[in-house]
């Protein structure tokens, strides 16, 4: 056990957080290996952010333990935070300083001298494509630029573990892809990354492994592809404006049928011949046959009901 704990970048064991009678996180256990990129998925209120905040020493766990490279978050918060790069959900850049000064002041919190931090800050601004904004006031930056600056700030202390809490929420596609490119290049350099996200595509694109949470618990974890294969199979049939005859036909086939409003989802156990079969029997039926995605897994496990 000791040796696995040392190999893990992050290791959580029976981690819980309660607020009075409300249990935000109910005993989650997981490991993140060194150099691994792991995504935490879950609807709002699933407990993702609370878990992340316990790992980054913001919240003391109600019970259970969490270790970063073997260091207990409760006993060694200063040392743990030295190893972490934290990108919070809300931008909390210092509006009293310009872009470069934000990094210099932040580096000072880590105890780095100006001569160490300045070249590193300039290099990171280059990395996140903000070199031409060095002296821009924070208020003048777009949402995407702010996120990139927060990412640069999280990398200042050359963290061994990067924690990204919803890194691309609210960004336009260009800005999102810019963040993804940075995360991929960090992954190539061997940085361990834990990210939370609502976007299944983000998780599929970036993560070696995903963990799906709901109601404060971990429902399932694995590689994105293995979860898709295991939970929903290869193919999904979506149909609309369909009659009872069509639904009845699908019900007779091996697989899982789901009707949501006026739309029908069918997850066949054997997807290879479904297209030909439907073409023969219901050539006029409006439908879409597509590959199953992580989103199908997510909706199957967490349901389609609105959370808020």
């Amino acid at each position, binding site marked *: 056990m000791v040796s696995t704990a040392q190999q893990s970048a992050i290791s959580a064991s029976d981690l819980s957080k309660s607020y009075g009678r409300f249990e935000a996180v109910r005993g989650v256990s997981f490991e993140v290996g060194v150099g691994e990129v792991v995504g935490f998925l879950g609807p709002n209120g699933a407990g993702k952010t609370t878990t992340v905040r316990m790992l980054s020493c913001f919240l003391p766990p109600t019970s259970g333990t969490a270790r970063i490279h073997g260091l207990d978050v409760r006993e060694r918060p*200063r040392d743990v935070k*030295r190893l972490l790069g934290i990108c919070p959900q809300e931008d909390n850049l210092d509006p*009293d300083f310009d872009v470069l000064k934000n990094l210099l002041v932040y580096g000072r*919190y880590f105890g780095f001298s100006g001569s160490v931090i300045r070249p590193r800050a300039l290099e990171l601004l280059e990395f996140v494509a903000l070199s031409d904004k060095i002296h821009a006031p924070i208020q003048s930056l777009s949402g995407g630029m702010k996120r990139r600056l927060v990412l640069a700030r999280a990398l200042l202390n050359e963290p061994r573990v990067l924690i990204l809490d919803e890194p691309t929420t609210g960004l336009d596609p260009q800005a999102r892809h810019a963040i993804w490119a940075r995360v991929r290049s960090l992954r190539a350099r061997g940085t361990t990354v834990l990210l939370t996200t609502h976007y299944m595509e983000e998780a599929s694109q970036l993560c070696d492994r995903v963990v799906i949470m709901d109601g404060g618990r971990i429902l399932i974890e694995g590689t994105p592809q293995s979860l898709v294969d295991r939970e929903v199979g290869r193919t999904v049939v979506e149909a609309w404006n369909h009659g009872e005859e069509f639904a009845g036909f699908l019900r007779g086939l091996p697989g899982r049928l789901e009707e949501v409003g006026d739309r029908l989802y069918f997850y066949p156990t054997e997807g290879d011949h479904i297209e030909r079969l439907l073409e023969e029997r219901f050539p006029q039926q409006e439908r879409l046959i597509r590959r199953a995605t992580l989103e199908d897994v997510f909706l199957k496990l967490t349901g389609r009901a609105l959370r808020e």
Partner: protein
Amino acid sequence: MRTILHNVSLRSLRVWQRDIDVYMTNWKTEFLPPLLEPILYVFAFGFGLGSLIHEVKYQGHTLSYVQFMAPGIIAIAIMFWSFTETTYSSFVRMYYQRTFDAILATPLLVEDVILGELLWAASKAVIASAIMLGILTALGLVAWPSGLWVIPLAALGGLLFSALGLVVTAVTKNISSFNLPMFLLIMPMFTFSGTFFPVDILPSWALKIAWALPLTHVSFQVRAAVLGWPDPWLWASVLYLVVLTLILSALALLLMKRRLIQ
């Protein structure tokens, strides 16, 4: 006490440094109020009100009203600059700018943030009182070198009132709620702490209350320093202020921890 002091460290100076960096980028506007305030008060109250009140009997001496009041406005400034810094300004940093959250993602802990904020607010009181001391000296209202005692008194009083401010901030839900402690704590001290008139003219029950107010001790000792009449009760006042400062700082830390770590 040991658990409270457990995480206190010199890293709090990083927080102090951050605040002073912000102050220095706006120094032109920051220096102006403490520069103009004494001039305004001295002319309005000192010469205006002073033309009605010709002299004040104070500790067996007779003073002009402006001489009496000038140290009072330094004492008020010590309270005002430190208290507003850890109420309105700290609240903006904590709640709107989320600066504390950003700092807590680094090796600094809540204790460092709180101590840094206290040190900075006290520094602001020291800077303001030093500027006012200069202006009042130019107006011929300060005895030297005893006037220099104002600086350590400003540091102590600044710590006290900034701790009081943080206690208030820790339990305040929104920024407009600060009007209440302003009215209940700061205004009574502003008027009844021997700032604009000697406390001994108060009825005895009110006098007891006045001596419980920390600003009474600050204004009394600042006046002794500015007038150059050493006060035999100096160390008793200092002790009282130190004890209050320690209690309020511990309380501020406790309540802020509860607020920031949930």
